[in-house]
């Protein structure tokens, strides 16, 4: 990559206002550094993967409204977590957290556990219990 080939795609939405450092070759064939404002191929890749998360959040939201899943799953996805990460934040076994995905189990959780989930997701207990808030 030559210095003048370092991409400056402002359309790359992933970069917003920042510039990353790239290594490129100058006219004498020596390496130097050059900031890049973004590159379309990787911007699209990132956007597509975010779209996928959005899609999944929407699907899960419906399932929570239909009482097939507990709100915990919704907030887990919203925070881009998976079961492993969430269980680690909660300090609980994965199978235990997975049980809380069932609405019936979730409704019977003690205040202490509920508070901990709310804290982990950085939301209030009311929000945790009702995802429309």
């Amino acid at each position: 990559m030559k210095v003048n080939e370092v991409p400056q795609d402002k359309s790359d939405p992933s970069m917003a206002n920042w510039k990353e450092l790239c290594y490129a070759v100058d006219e004498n064939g020596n390496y130097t550094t050059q900031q890049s404002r973004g590159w379309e191929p990787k911007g699209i890749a990132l956007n597509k993967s975010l779209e996928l998360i959005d899609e999944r959040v929407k699907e899960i939201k419906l399932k929570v409204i239909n009482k097939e899943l507990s709100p915990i799953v919704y907030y887990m996805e919203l925070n881009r977590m998976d079961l492993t990460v969430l269980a680690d934040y909660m300090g609980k076994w994965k199978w235990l957290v997975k049980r809380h995905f069932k609405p019936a189990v979730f409704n019977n959780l003690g205040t202490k556990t509920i508070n901990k989930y709310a804290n982990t997701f950085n939301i209030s207990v009311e929000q945790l219990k009702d995802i429309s808030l």
Partner: protein
Amino acid sequence: MEIDFKHNQAAHCENGVISNLLTHNGYPISEPLAFGIGSGIFFVYLPFLKINFAPGISFRPMPGLIFKRLSKRLGVKIKRQKFRNSITAKTALDELLNNNIPVGLQVGVFNLTYFPDVYRFHFNAHNLVVYGKDKDTYLISDPIMDTVTTLTSVELDKVRFAKGAFSPKGQMYYPISIPKELDLKKAIKRAIRSTCNEMLAPVPIVGVKGMRMVARSIKKWPKKIGVKKTNHYLGQIVRMQEEIGTGGGGFRFIYGAFLEEASQIMNNPELKALSKEITEIGDSWRDFAIDASRLYKNRSKEFDGYSKVSEKLMLLADREEVFFKKLKKSIT
């Protein structure tokens, strides 16, 4: 208090922190040199490990390994500490800052407030340097950022104790002893040898062989798992190859810069020629990314495009095999 610390933007966080910390201690080592001596270039395919619902692919070794190898090869002693709770972690950090020692920290990315939202994932092996404190605000030099930034003590505590894979557990590190004379020649020789051995390793998922395995899979994916999933997988490969940290072309350009510097230090013109060669290979990686992005952008239904991308990757593997064999010979 504020330590007189020079912030240099880097492509990759780990090399950047090493380079900035060593430079602060009077041993100016560039990012490419740190990357090369730490044998940073790598390839591994982990089809059984799903990251973000796609098979794991990495163009770099395990987090922390570059630093570990570099300090071993240069004889630099690094003090590392992990903590059980935030209070002791904070006190230990403050004490070092009071003694005018800039400290490297391993942190989680998700709660880094200065990161753009799109990059905030639960990735826990990011590195930055704390170089001072003003009341309740820490002064941060994050190597991938343009300039220095700040975090409040609450924010810093959150990222130091992020949870999940590679959780940092408050880990901090700083050099405690550096040999008077760094034997760069010996370190570079060892580093290049180990890089070549890894890239040419007789292991199906590592190095050149790993690339071939991915190339073969790309051809099969559209029929096996459908076009939508294939596109997601391809997107993931391009992200690993190009996203912040790689300096472009899956680290190939940083490695080119390293070989150029190494050629001067070792007085070996052959390395300069090889630097040119890996730069061209890096350009082909970029072409590969462009072709792959066309596929996932348009959601084209033709399987033809996928075999073309697959062939391109196969060709890259062949070229890299030749390259690393030459590189190994050049230093003996």
